[in-house]
């Protein structure tokens, strides 16, 4: 089977997923509410991060608890590059003078942040990718703890545990939309590339893959660096979405939120990664509205505060009980073909015809 045919058969997935995001953006534009706009920005950032996770976890089958560290690296890099130099002088006196003098537009900074995070993923991955299974997961968790400790204590450069402020806030939706679409296409391109196919082969049949000449640590490293870069992009955009970064934003809370969205959607599917975020975020939003109170006739109906987290937890448990492989399992969203539904089993996932 040739490469072009894989491309043609699978390109519908990223296109459809992107169209769903574009549709969400259009709805947001039509509603014109600023908090809803911010909710969508949040959603797109989560899409970027979960797609980042998927690139590594989905293709390698190794669960990583450490990817939030790359979001942290990206977020702080964006802060260093975009805070007005005058503020940097007082807030972060330990920055090297060339970095303290730099003042870049947010999109340039976001790209540099992605490269920076990808570079560190490459360095750490070089060591970590020799491990497999639970050992690799624990090592990535150690990576997260290490980055968090450094960023919490290197006060003159990162501001320590205090908030770093002065990051220009970007409230327009489209940069986030573009970044999310880019992330989806990067994930797709990697998945159908030689490296992606080899990595999935190694995930499903490591022995056979090695026997076929696949260098597993190397293929994992490619995915790790790429996913680190996408996480870095997500972290940078997160910084621009609220204008503040702190080390504890990029720690356990974000790690488990993004991981659970990936698990609920389906770890081994790009569709699962994207739609897991979309569906869970919309669910959260609906519960928020119910918490805030919905007018029904003359009275208003409201759920008690805090119920949102509980209901969300219960729904996630139910989903995983009914569909242990996540909502989408290994299926991808594709165009319907005669005799098939909207989602098809991924015959394109590298399994031989």
């Amino acid at each position: 089977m040739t490469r072009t045919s894989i491309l043609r058969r699978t390109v519908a997935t990223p296109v459809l997923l992107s169209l769903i995001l574009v549709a969400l953006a259009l709805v947001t534009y039509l509603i014109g509410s600023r908090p809803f706009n911010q909710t969508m920005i949040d959603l797109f950032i989560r899409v970027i991060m979960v797609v980042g996770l998927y690139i590594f976890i989905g293709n390698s089958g190794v669960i990583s608890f450490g990817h939030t560290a790359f979001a942290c690296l990206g977020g702080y890099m964006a802060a260093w590059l975009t805070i007005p130099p005058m503020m940097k002088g007082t807030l972060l006196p330990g920055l090297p003078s060339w970095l303290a003098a730099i003042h870049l537009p947010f999109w340039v900074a976001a790209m540099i942040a992605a490269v920076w995070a990808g570079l560190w993923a490459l360095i750490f991955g070089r060591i970590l990718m020799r491990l497999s299974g639970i050992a690799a997961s624990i090592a990535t968790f150690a990576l997260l703890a290490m980055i968090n400790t450094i960023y919490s204590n290197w006060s003159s450069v990162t501001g320590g545990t205090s908030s770093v402020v002065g990051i220009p806030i970007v409230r327009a939706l489209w940069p986030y939309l573009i970044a999310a679409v880019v992330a989806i296409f990067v994930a797709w391109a990697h998945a159908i590339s030689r490296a992606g196919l080899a990595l999935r082969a190694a995930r499903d049949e490591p022995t056979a893959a090695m026997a076929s000449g696949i260098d597993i640590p190397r293929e994992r490293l490619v995915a790790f660096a790429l996913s680190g870069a996408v996480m870095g992009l997500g972290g940078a955009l997160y910084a621009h979405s609220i204008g503040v970064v702190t080390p504890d934003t990029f720690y356990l809370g974000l790690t488990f939120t993004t991981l659970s969205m990936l698990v609920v959607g389906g770890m081994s599917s790009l569709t699962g990664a994207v739609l897991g975020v979309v569906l869970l975020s919309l669910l959260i939003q609906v519960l928020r509205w119910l918490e805030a109170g919905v007018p029904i006739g003359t009275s208003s109906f409201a759920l008690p505060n805090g119920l949102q987290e509980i209901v969300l937890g219960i729904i996630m448990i139910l989903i995983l009980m009914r569909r242990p492989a996540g909502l989408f399992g290994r299926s991808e969203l594709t165009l319907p073909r005669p005799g098939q539904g909207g989602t098809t089993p991924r015959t394109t996932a590298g399994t031989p015809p």
Partner: protein
Amino acid sequence: MKLHGKLAAVLAISTCLTTPALADGDTITVGFATAESGFMQAYDKPAQDAAMIRIDEINAAGGLLGKQIKVVTADTKTDRAEGAKAGLSVIDQGADLVVVSCDYDFGAPAALAAEAAGKVSFFLCAESIKAGIQGVGPHSFSASVLAAVQGATMAQWAYEKKGARDFYRLLDNWTEYNKGICDGFDWMLPKLPDAKLVGEDTFKNDDASIAAQITRIKSLPKEPDAIMLCTMMPGAVSAIKQIRAAGITAPILNGSGVDGSYWLSAVPDLSNFFVPVQGSIYGDDPNADVTKFNATYKTKTGGDPSSQYVYPGYVMIDLWAKAVERAKSTDADAVVAELEKMKDEPTIFGTRTFTPELHHQNQARYLIVDVEKGQPKVVDQWTISEPIPVSALMK
């Protein structure tokens, strides 16, 4: 295309649930983008209740500029990203004043949203200099007093009134607030002739034991005249208990963070323990209006104020409303200009001053609460002799 159908349904529902905000010309709106759930709720709720008391008083007296004050709220869920949304949400609901969380870190996203929208924002009780011009922008204020003023107040008061000369400084470097108290102490100490620092140490709020630090205090040639303890709840209780259990009886000076009697039973018969407060929750405030406020608070909320941190909420609405009256408008720049003109503006919790450089209090009257045998009472009041300069605060 079952999946698409489901998605469309979800989208349709979410569209229906969003109701457009309507601006109302006959009311003035105060928006609370504060925590209604999560750990910050414990700090935000009491101060917000106090703010509501002042709003009710103003509405009962005919409103502000002849208009009633309307309140809108949004929950930050003690989360920064939600905080930004909550800020935008109350702005969309027409807030003229955006009130944000007590803590700088958690209030900043909403305050930054307000700043970007050109609205006045007030931190309910943040005590970092960043909560204002320095960390948000020219339309942002804090209703409390800088942490540094607490440390400076205790140092000077202990020097003048307790004859303390040899100070020991014990810092819990967990939060900016703790560091702020000790920064103020550090600034004040060199100004006190022949007062000296005989030792200093640090610990972390969640340290189970501070035995090492206590050993160093015990091994000093003579017990210090006063220990400046820069810490906060929950670790403060354990630290205080260990210091007293080790037989150190020297006066302990604190920040306002340890105010309240809810924890005193954990350290039985605590004595020689001093806390600066903006107003007394113990019913012995020299100003009868404070005691009256406490009673109102009890009627409205069903409980006594748990600490002095309820008071800044009341002060905030009081000052902002005065500025609106004087500006004859809720326009942000006009209100900020009036707030910045306030010099020693009286409130029932002491005077307040804002300047174009500092939207916070770098000098304020504090009541000194002395805990003797587990009983807190107001014994004195103190205002530091000079305001702490912004340069000393910005380190």
